[in-house]
């Protein structure tokens, strides 16, 4: 057989494998790590799962800022537990990502070098205690809407990790809303803090759903692979519709003069999102991008001697055991 013929046969084989693969996903079958998969499926999943994991890890930083200054022991244990959950979610997701053949070290390297992205929302500062309330209520609220459909995504390890994550997120949102509720029932100054936090977190939260459908480059492929079940705009609308009544209960005003109930659509119309700001933050020019990476890389580097010492200890113990066995 000539080289050309061999190439042609290989191309045909890969086409038929790909057709069978797409058919399996269409039948709602799950894909497991050792199954054959198109290279693009593997790379897209590495990108999305690792971005998700990085977001959980970097997401600990803005909230960690308030652990030592939580206003009561009750608030402090809840915030500690929440931040610990974010670490856990990052770890579930990193290990799901590693099943695709990338190492944990490579994943960290991509985050620390800036090659990999994480959710832009964490590049905003947490300047008052009310921000902790607003993050739980809005940021975790938006995250839940993004994540629930992923419990059914086609890649088995990702779907299983997401089931665990979603189970734990609902406490996060409720603890945030409770913080807002208490502030709103408090003094005029406390309520003002809550309103100020909503003013600053509302628009970045809407941006968490990503660019509009018209601008989104990955939507079609991601829908096919069930990495997405609804479009960015549909999810954003769902978030707005469920959050506006929650703001009303708090007695707070959503900072959008164009927000209006649309009787015909049975949904809220809302104002224009500042996409220039969104892209600026994505490109690294948000208020806290540099600070977040500095904190993350610093923690990793300062921990290096601990990791090395633990490994050296484990090896020494193993050698000792081997000698004793002789």
């Amino acid at each position: 057989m000539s080289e050309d013929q061999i190439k042609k046969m290989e191309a045909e084989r890969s086409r038929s494998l790909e057709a069978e693969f797409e058919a399996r996903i269409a039948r709602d079958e799950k894909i497991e790590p050792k199954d054959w998969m198109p290279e693009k499926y593997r790379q897209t999943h590495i990108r999305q799962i690792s971005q998700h994991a990085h977001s959980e890890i970097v997401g600990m930083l803005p909230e960690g800022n308030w652990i030592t200054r939580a206003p009561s022991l009750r608030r402090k244990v809840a915030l500690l537990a929440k931040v610990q959950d974010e670490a856990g979610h990052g770890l579930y997701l990193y290990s799901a990502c590693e099943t695709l053949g990338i190492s944990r070290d490579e994943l960290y390297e991509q985050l620390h070098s800036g090659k990999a992205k994480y959710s832009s929302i964490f590049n905003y500062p947490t300047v008052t205690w009310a921000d902790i309330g607003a993050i739980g209520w809005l940021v975790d609220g938006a995250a839940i809407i993004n994540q629930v459909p992923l419990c059914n995504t086609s890649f088995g390890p990702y779907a299983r990790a997401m089931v665990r994550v979603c189970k734990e997120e609902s406490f996060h949102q409720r603890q945030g809303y409770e913080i807002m509720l208490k502030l709103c029932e408090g003094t005029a100054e406390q309520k003002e803090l809550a309103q100020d936090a909503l003013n600053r977190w509302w628009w970045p939260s809407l941006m968490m759903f990503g660019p509009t459908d018209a601008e989104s480059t990955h939507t079609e492929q991601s829908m096919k692979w069930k990495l997405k079940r609804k479009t960015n705009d549909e999810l954003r609308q769902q978030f707005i519709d469920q959050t506006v009544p929650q703001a009303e209960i708090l007695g707070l005003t959503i900072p959008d003069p164009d927000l209006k109930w649309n009787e015909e659509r049975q949904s809220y119309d809302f104002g224009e999102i500042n996409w220039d700001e969104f892209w600026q933050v994505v490109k690294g020019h948000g208020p806290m991008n540099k600070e977040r990476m500095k904190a993350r890389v610093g923690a990793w580097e300062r921990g290096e001697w601990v990791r090395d010492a633990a490994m050296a200890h484990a090896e020494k113990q193993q050698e000792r055991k081997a000698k004793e066995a002789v």
Partner: protein
Amino acid sequence: MSNKKNWPLWEVFVRSKNGLEHRHFGSLHAADAEMALENARDVYTRRNEGVSIWVVESKHITASNPEHNGELFEPAKDKVYRHPTFYDLPDDVKHM
């Protein structure tokens, strides 16, 4: 980045309650078995998900190759006589 060895990968199995089997929960990195157990407790059982944990270094697991699923699992498909419904019995026969 460190030139030294990275912490190996471990697979975590958790028994949710006595009477049930250990089930695969996920994986994690740890320097040794003891640390793997401690990390597994923090990562996978923060809400009373388990009463017992097993950890095993991932490299010790031998897995079947999905490409061989045909020869491994298909022979069982045409052996219907291994199932009770294969046998024709009159309706009058009770308790069987």
